[in-house]
């Protein structure tokens, strides 16, 4: 494994116990310049993970708690009329940070959701006809409660597509939970000492990820997976070309974390469920939650 990556992962693992796989996925999502959606029950450590991730990267962090009465201006910012200078002044909202945690995104109204997602897509916001660029790197971590919980507005499919990955944390293993309980409750995590790299270093790493080699047979493998989802009637939502781009980009980031300069089929398989599951079945089917479309695809196509 890449030395730097393993340091980062170890550091985050100290905070989020027993979730190494998810941390790796989240990290690769960040390195692939994508946005992350975490779907889980409350109290599973979603916020902790995102906070730790941004701190480890040395990025500025802000958190927006989404509620049903949250307005777009609450995220983006407002122009306020200043009576002494007789002009409008723009007060940037929480979105002007490098890492934005949108907590419980599906509890806000669709209008507010759209405002955030638009900002994610364009990397800029417009207020009163003026355009303000967002920070770079800009990374959104959204969390959402499972859809069957009351008081939620499901994200539309088109907007789910904007997230590179969707992961869920799940309960920690027993040993990890035990360890967590044994830990002395310190007042508060000191995230100031947490940074492993700087923002510019992160940008360099993201560049390096782009240059990871993907052989023809690997691209072929991705194409086979994607085209199977389009050909078979089993899959209600076929994968888009943007999805195949996402698979490749995420696999490259995964390969980087693994310390390789080329992508293998194992990399693709590792990120594939996280990248494609929310595209293949946007509304997690409550009736049969364990049928995983992405796993079906992986099982049907031979690598190489």
């Amino acid at each position, binding site marked *: 494994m890449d030395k730097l990556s393993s340091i980062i992962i170890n550091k985050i693992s100290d905070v989020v116990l027993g979730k190494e796989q998810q941390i790796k996925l989240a990290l690769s999502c960040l390195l692939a310049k994508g946005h992350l959606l975490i779907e889980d029950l409350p109290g599973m450590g979603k916020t902790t993970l995102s906070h730790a991730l941004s701190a480890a990267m040395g990025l500025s962090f802000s958190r927006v708690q989404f509620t049903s009465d949250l307005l777009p201006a609450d995220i983006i910012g407002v122009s306020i009329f200043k009576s002494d200078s007789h002009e409008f002044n723009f007060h940037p909202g929480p979105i002007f940070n490098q890492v934005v945690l949108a907590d419980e995104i599906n509890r806000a109204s669709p209008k507010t959701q759209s405002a955030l997602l638009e900002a994610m897509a364009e990397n800029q916001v417009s207020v009163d006809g003026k355009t303000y660029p967002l920070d770079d790197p800009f990374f959104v971590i959204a969390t959402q409660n499972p859809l069957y919980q009351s008081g939620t507005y499901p994200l539309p499919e088109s907007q789910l597509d904007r997230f590179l990955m969707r992961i869920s944390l799940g309960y920690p293993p027993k040993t990890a939970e035990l360890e967590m309980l044994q830990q002395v409750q310190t007042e508060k995590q000191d995230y100031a000492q947490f940074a492993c790299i700087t923002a510019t270093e992160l940008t360099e790493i993201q560049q390096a990820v782009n240059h990871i080699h993907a052989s023809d047979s*690997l691209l072929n493998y991705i194409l086979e997976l994607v085209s199977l989802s389009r050909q078979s009637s089993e899959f209600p939502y076929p994968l888009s070309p943007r999805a195949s781009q996402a698979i490749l980009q995420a696999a490259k980031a995964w390969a980087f974390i693994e310390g390789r300069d080329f992508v293998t089929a194992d990399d693709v398989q590792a990120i594939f469920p996280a990248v494609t599951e929310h595209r293949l079945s946007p509304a997690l089917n409550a009736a049969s939650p364990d049928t995983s479309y992405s796993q079906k695809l992986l099982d*049907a196509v031979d*690598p190489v």
Partner: protein
Amino acid sequence: MKQRQNTSEPILLSTVLLVCAANLVVLFYQSLENHFNAFFFFLVCAAVRLAPFFFPQFKLKRRYEISLFIIALIIILTSIIGKDILATLFTLLVCLQSLTILRLFSTRELKTCVWVLLFLVAANLLFFFEFQNVVILFMAVIVALSALINHFCNYNIYKEAVSRMINIALLALPVAVILFLVMPRLPPLWKMPKVESQSRGLQDKIRFGDIAELSQSSNLAFRASFDGQPPKTSQMYWRSFVLQNFDGNIWQRSEYMESWQKLVKTRRSGVQWKNLQAPAVNYQVITEASYQNWLFALDLATSRQQGVISLPDFSLYSSETLTQKFRYQVTSYPESQLTDFDNNQIKQLNLQLPNVANPKTEQWVKALKQQSTTDAELIQAVLNYFNQQDFYYSLKPEVLESPKIDDFLFNTRTGFCEHYAGTFTYIMRLAGIPARVVVGYLGGEYNPAGDYFSVYQFDAHAWAEIWQADKGWVRIDPTSYVAPERVEFNLQQAIGNDEFLAERDFSLFKYDQFAAIRTMRMLISNLDYQWTLWVLNYDATKQKDLLKKLFGETSGLAFTLKLAFLILGLFSFIFVVGWLLAHKKSPQSQLQRLQQKATQKLAKKYQIQRRQGQTLRQLKRQTQQHSEALAQNWQTFCQHFEQLEYAPLSQAQFKIHYRACQQLIKQL
């Protein structure tokens, strides 16, 4: 090779260019065969087809396209009216080929186009079988086939397509050679319908000035190669035929001799010479197509070859008209003197005089005869007259006034060999000595590289023969008394370079004084000779000789077995080469096999089955259940394999990892 699945793919520019180039060559040959209109039509069609590639806004309007079709119709119709059926068929083919190119938009048309091209090449080879043409047409075929490759493999690079096709052609060449050598030589199923309106070379009616005219031609007449020491070129009097009837203007064959020619045609029989005296000279001759029956040989020639027949005037006559190159074996006995002929018949045939009188000549001969006592003295006196008076040897003799012999002897005194031979024979006959004119060729050009003599049309010659009861027919060449250089060297020496081939400024012969050009000309002609000798004239007998040389006896069970073995070997060779080509190792298929080998070994030895969709690395857990060592091995294998499959590797690195993988599979 990636096969193109979708046949409705558009035809690429490179493909169209390759097709047009190949057609340009092949149809140009057709245009030489008088289909010039059609060839021009092809150029227009090709230009129209290529235009959209270079001028994107170009689009042929419907009415112009229709008018092109109408032009094609007109071309075909005019050729129906003006030419024979074969020419029309070819015009039709060329026009249709051009229209196919005009509408070359799909794979189907491309295939048609190439097929027709192959047919046209085969047709061209019937007319243009010389070595250089074969090479050019062969290249055209390669270009056309590379157009197919270019289209189907989607190369779009001429170099790649052509080099691939050349590879294939080189592989096919040995097979073609073997097939050429061992396939049974069938006689042609049909004859060339092409009838030459004019036969080439010497005609068996000679007017004064005819041979002089023929001497303007540098075309090849025939080639000869001697088994032993060849005679001197000044002694190479290649006899073609004998003329005995003279009407004061034209020398022609006598009716008696023509009756022998007919006999040859109906019964294929001639005379057999007896009492021939050694030494004998053996040689073989390859004639060009002359569309006549006359063959060429030194005196006194016999041939045991079928179809080559001796006539009583010592000529060799072919039972078939020579519509193509013909090779025959001859034995000559230069010192033979045959005397046992019917004296009366000879006198009757060879003392014939024309009705037109030449009074001056008759008077002069009478006077000469009174002065000399013997025939020999008389002959010498005539020859001395030629030698000492101011007679000139010229390619452009003045046209003679009637009576022609008088005009020549006492007025113009410039003539070519037929003037001297004809006049001398006439004088002999006036003097009562039986004499005749012999027409043929004199000398020849030696090609040291190929060890053979080339005889060209400008070597054409005529000389006289007189009958002497004790010696038989004796050759006398009056030309040698006028222009001895003609006999000692050749025509070029005799008349000078300026007059030689005066009407052909571009003939290579004119530049013989440059050593490089001469060497090159010799080289090319030798190449053509060997081609003729070994390929064009490769017939059943030659094949038999070759098989004999290779396998000894050519009959019996052993030979049959050997032949069967050879053919079997040939086919298995083709099969093996084909199989190897089909399974040529691409890196991808190599890896596929490597992977297959590894998983099969796991399945057989350890019952570890690979599920669909599993990567190799995912099998590690199952290997761990067997032993740690196996798991370790498997992991290393996976590492190397991943490098091979996914990493950008150089050739050397690929080899290293590939070897490692093979090693590890063995250790599993």
